[in-house]
């Protein structure tokens, strides 16, 4: 049995009054259970372990040490799960000679056996989500598989642990790795070199139970897991067939640069056969069936946390079969106004009038949706025969649908007032 | 350190071995007085030596504003008819050579003795020779005085504040620091409170390189102080149990002199702390103050009393020094409140001790609104004048379980009008102030409006 962590030492010291007295070491009890609660927003894992301990009447001294681990000494807690009314922690002492050890003075009303829990924070274990979407041939739906991967770079092997994953962004005011003391950087480096993925092929797929707690979700992995040091282990979180997918060709210089990009859009809701839980932040990769069982890569996006009912957009990049070109067809100045400075006349105000043309081409053999965002500045009037909507004070949007093989031109004019022509609206 | 008293020595011995251990040894340097009678009056003539007399008494007058101590010592010397040559040397000391003086003590001595000259031999800058004419041979008491550096004193105070912060027991101490290299045994100690004017530093005058510098005249006030010394001694036989020494305080010109009862021995490099006075139950007031000019930008707790009779003080000014405040934590136990450096506190002056912000009594200022009005444009349509109207709110919250007094000073800038329904009063041209009492657990909001004219509007 590799667990308990060899470096963690729990000893019960029979207490005779003075500190200098000879300490009697009581048989080290076995660890009964261990539970890992792993956070993904910060480098933090809460470890809880339970043991059965026997206390004698009066004061008992319990020593807990954790040399060569990444445990945060300020986080170590003792809790009596049974007989809590008879057992009380009087103080926690951190001896000078070791910063990786503490001693609890525990008073017990009578000689009892109790199940106790010791909990602490450690760093070096993390988890992340990944999503794998297989598009249907018509790109109108996909099979979505969600995974969670647990990576253990803590320096310890966790055997037969209950694993809980917390989805959410908790506030930490100090890094656990810093509180856990030195040696961490070296260990991380070493670990990265050796990291490899554990064989995901287990006898049976495990369920992951998802529950909400405050602003977070807790994913509990069914049964127990063993995660050796420097290993990553990937578990399937869910699989969903036939998730409907929408394709929108989007032109938005502020988000995607000057090119027209293909966005594959779905929602984390019931209509999309999802929406049972939020989707933790992770990489979404989309593939298409390239025939003969081969995969073709379509695109990927690193998503933030996706709440239930929220939308996901995966950028599949530029598509040569769908094009957009923008041209300025005309430019003129109007309404020139002049002022006098002494006996010299100068140009005080003018309007510019520009005519633009957007040319959209759909070479695909299916209808496509466009979303074209035009960003403007200054005191302007926007005018077009094609319907558009105002997104904010400087953005107009054309939402268009082009049939298979269709070409379309959209014209608009922009009048911008300059100098003294800027209006007092 | 024991003093060894002198065997007769010859002038030759003296010249060749001025630091012989058989001479008067003081600390790690030598102070030598050699009294010789000379017949005839040439330096090379054979000298007859007299027994070197004991120092009868020594008095130290220590200044705290300057590194300066006036030393007076008295000895009884035998003089012969005619001219007596008296040699005084001070190798390896911090004595100011320009300050060394010789005075006969008492009417007989003054009638019989006259200093004809003081000569400073070329071969030694740490020696002088007085030629003293004597009309009636006898033993006379003489006083030699000089300035030295390396001895200083400072004041300290300990205040123990009662639980209600309504009064305190104040103990004042004086501490004498002796780094002069000399052990002063059984010296009468006098301390001068006040800032005297010195044109040169004693430590510089004591250095050999300063030889030949013009002799500075001691300030007139010092001469006066020296005369004061004649009647300062207050010795008490002290029968029965010893009591802490009285420190007598007397005023003089711009200074105060504290005279320590009896005699003190202060070994070289030691400090000695003596109790100056104890006053029980000095009435104390706590005021929470926002006064940026005096106490910085924070709303701060200030303990206040006055150096006057009403506060059981006022008998003398309080020299500058550290005030350490403790509070009575019950059963004679103490809690620490704070330490601060106090300036010289004249009689009848208020003392305000800033003990720092208190999280249990807070003040917060908010600007509730800003409006601009009376905008004035010039002929080129440029803004040249405007008036701002700002509403402010000050909220003072007292989380303590007792009433507190609060005083707030609020300064404004520029050409402003101040308007409030609260009882503010004008403190100076730019500052309004308000003083009130806030009950336990209460808070109070003060509001005021500041109208400021800017640019053309301020003309």
């Amino acid at each position, binding site marked *: 049995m590799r667990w308990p962590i060899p470096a963690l030492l729990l000893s019960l010291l029979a207490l005779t009054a003075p500190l200098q007295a000879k300490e009697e070491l009581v048989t080290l009890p076995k660890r009964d259970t261990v539970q890992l609660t792993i956070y993904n927003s910060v480098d933090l894992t809460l470890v809880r372990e339970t043991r059965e301990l026997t206390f004698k009447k009066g004061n008992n001294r319990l020593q807990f040490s954790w040399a060569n681990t990444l445990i945060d000494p300020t986080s170590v807690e003792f809790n009596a799960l049974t007989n809590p009314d008879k057992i009380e922690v009087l103080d926690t002492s951190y001896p000078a000679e070791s910063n990786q050890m503490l001693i609890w003075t525990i008073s017990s009303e009578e000689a009892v056996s109790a199940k106790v829990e010791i909990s602490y*924070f450690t760093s070096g274990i993390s988890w992340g989500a990944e999503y794998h979407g297989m598009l249907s041939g018509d790109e109108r739906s996909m099979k979505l598989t969600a995974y969670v991967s647990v990576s253990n770079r803590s320096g310890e092997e966790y055997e037969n642990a209950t694993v809980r994953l917390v989805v959410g962004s908790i506030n930490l005011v100090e890094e656990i790795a810093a509180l856990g003391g030195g040696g961490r950087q070296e260990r991380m480096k070493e670990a990265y070199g050796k990291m490899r993925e554990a064989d995901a092929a287990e006898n049976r797929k495990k369920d992951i139970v998802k529950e909400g707690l405050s*602003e977070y979700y807790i994913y509990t992995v069914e049964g127990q897991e063993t995660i050796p040091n420097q290993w990553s282990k990937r578990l399937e979180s869910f699989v969903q067939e036939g998730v409907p997918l929408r394709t929108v060709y989007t032109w938005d210089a502020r988000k995607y640069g000057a090119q027209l990009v293909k966005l594959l859009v779905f929602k984390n809701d019931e209509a999309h056969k999802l929406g049972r839980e939020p989707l933790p932040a992770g990489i979404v990769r989309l593939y298409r069936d390239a025939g003969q069982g081969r995969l073709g890569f379509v695109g990927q996006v690193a998503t933030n946390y996706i709440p239930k009912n929220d939308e996901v957009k995966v950028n599949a990049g530029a598509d040569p079969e769908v094009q957009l070109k923008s041209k300025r067809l005309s430019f003129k100045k109007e309404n020139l106004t002049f002022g006098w400075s002494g006996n010299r006349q100068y140009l005080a105000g003018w309007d510019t009038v520009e005519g633009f043309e957007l040319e959209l081409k759909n070479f695909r053999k299916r209808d496509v949706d466009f979303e074209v965002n035009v960003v403007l500045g200054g005191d302007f009037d926007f005018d077009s025969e094609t319907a558009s909507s105002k997104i904010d004070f400087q953005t107009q949007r054309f939402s268009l649908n082009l049939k298979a093989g269709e070409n379309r031109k959209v014209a608009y004019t922009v009048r911008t007032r300059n100098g003294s022509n800027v209006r007092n609206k | 350190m024991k003093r060894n008293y002198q065997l007769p020595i010859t002038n030759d011995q003296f010249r060749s071995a001025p630091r012989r251990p058989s001479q008067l040894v003081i600390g790690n340097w030598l102070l030598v007085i050699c009294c010789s009678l000379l017949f005839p009056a040439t330096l090379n003539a054979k000298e007859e030596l007299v027994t070197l007399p004991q120092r009868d008494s020594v008095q130290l007058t220590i200044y705290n504003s300057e590194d300066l101590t006036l030393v007076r010592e008295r000895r009884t010397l035998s003089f012969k008819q005619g001219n007596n040559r008296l040699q005084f040397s001070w190798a390896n000391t911090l004595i100011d050579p320009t300050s060394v003086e010789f005075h006969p003590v008492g009417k007989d001595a003054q009638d019989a003795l006259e200093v004809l000259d003081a000569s400073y031999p070329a071969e030694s800058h740490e020696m002088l020779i007085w030629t003293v004419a004597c009309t009636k041979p006898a033993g006379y008491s003489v006083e030699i005085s000089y300035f030295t550096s390396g001895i200083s004193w400072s004041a300290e105070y300990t205040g123990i504040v009662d639980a209600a912060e309504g009064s305190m027991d104040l103990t004042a101490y004086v501490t004498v620091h002796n780094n002069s290299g000399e052990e002063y045994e059984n010296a009468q100690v006098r301390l001068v409170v006040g800032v005297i004017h010195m044109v040169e530093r004693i430590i510089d005058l004591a250095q050999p390189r300063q030889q030949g510098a013009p002799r500075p005249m001691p300030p007139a006030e010092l001469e006066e102080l020296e005369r004061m010394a004649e009647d300062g001694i207050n010795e008490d036989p002290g029968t029965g149990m010893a009591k802490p020494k009285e420190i007598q305080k007397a005023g003089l010109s711009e200074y105060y002199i504290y005279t320590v009862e009896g005699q003190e021995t202060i070994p070289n490099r030691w400090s000695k702390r003596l109790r100056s006075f104890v006053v029980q139950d000095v009435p104390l007031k706590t005021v929470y103050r926002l006064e940026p000019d005096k106490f910085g930008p924070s709303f701060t707790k200030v303990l206040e009393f006055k150096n006057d009779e009403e506060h059981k003080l006022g008998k003398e000014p309080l020299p500058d020094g550290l005030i350490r405040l403790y509070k009575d934590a019950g059963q004679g136990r103490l809690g*620490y409140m704070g330490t601060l450096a106090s300036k010289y506190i004249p009689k009848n002056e208020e003392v305000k001790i800033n003990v720092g912000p208190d999280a249990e009594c807070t003040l917060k200022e908010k600007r509730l609104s*800003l409006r601009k009005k009376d905008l004035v444009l010039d002929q080129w349509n440029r803004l040249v004048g405007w008036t701002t109207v700002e509403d402010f709110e000050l909220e003072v919250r007292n989380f303590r379980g007792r009433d507190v007094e609060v005083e707030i000073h609020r300064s404004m800038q520029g050409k402003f009008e101040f308007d409030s329904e609260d009882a503010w009063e004008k403190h100076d041209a730019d500052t309004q102030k308000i003083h009130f009492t806030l009950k336990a657990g209460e808070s109070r909001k003060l509001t005021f409006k500041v109208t400021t004219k800017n640019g053309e509007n301020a003309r």
Partner: protein
Amino acid sequence: MNKRMIFTLAGTAALASVIGISRPTTVEARIKLATLPDKEAVVVRFDHPNQVLVEEERTISLQKGVNTVDFSWAGTNIDKGSIVFRPVDVNSKVEILSTSYPPGEAALTWSISSPDARSEKFRLSYLMANIQRETDYRAIVSNDEKTLTFRHYFKIRNWSGGTFDSADFITRDGKTFEKGLDQGEAKRVLVNKWDKVNLNKEYVYDLTRQYEGKVMTDYVLKNTKEMGLGAIPLEYGKVRIYQDDGKGTTAFTGEDWGQFTAVGDDMRLNIGIAQDIKVEFKKMVNDVENRRGNVYDTNEVDEYEIKNFKDSEVELTLVLRVQGEWEMQKDSEGYTSFERVDNETIKFKVKAPAKGAPVKLKFHYKRLNNW
């Protein structure tokens, strides 16, 4: 012959402070003999925010006349100017005549006069450096987030150079615990525990606290007796928050620095980001108007689209800021209440319906008299 006795702290090998006594003589040979009165009734006080006052009692045998008592503290960080030494009996006939400080030593000598030979108990108070203190809290929040159990811990670490075999440690709020504390050792003690403390949960959008515009989850504790606290001011310290997960165990849900909180005041703790509530900001109107020379007003409409993806409605507080002179316009809408906190700050409360149905806060305002 000098007769001088020395007292150590407690007879341990690590000798910290020493009291010796001798007949009055000059001090050229300060011989320290070893008959040691024990330190009694040692008290270590933390009532000052950054100084630690130690008090101890010593019983000293005095002879009639003037006694010299020697106190030395080599190796420990005692502030010698702070030493207060006095008989425990306020009516004692014993007097302390003077205090002398030898050169280059962590020591002093008192000159004490006594009317007769007697045994007198003295109390010695002094500031000691390098005794560190730290407050921290553990909160266990109920599963429904309505109440919590609040535990207050006090931790002291002793780097002073001295050893406390047994001392009463007194916290700022007067809690006393008796412990021993070695040099270098730290001890953490539970000093207060409050059950069923009422808790307010708030969702806050405030760019000055979270510049990315994410919504924060705050717990607000009112430090009053009615709300389950309130007996003492709460010291500054880290608060670690756990929540009952409804299965007999808890999960850590975040931590924050708890600011010093006077009785009656609020302690606000950010536990983390509420990721299921999203706020999207758009400026819909940004016009200049009412030009007078180089002076102008602006007309601005800021729109905050709030989506609450939770299964139930929530109330969101938006703390927004506008600089300078400005007025909110009456056609602002979408909020349930607002408060102009100060000239620059306005606080809106918005009810956000469940399941992502968007709600818009329209904040229409004019900034006046800019130049």
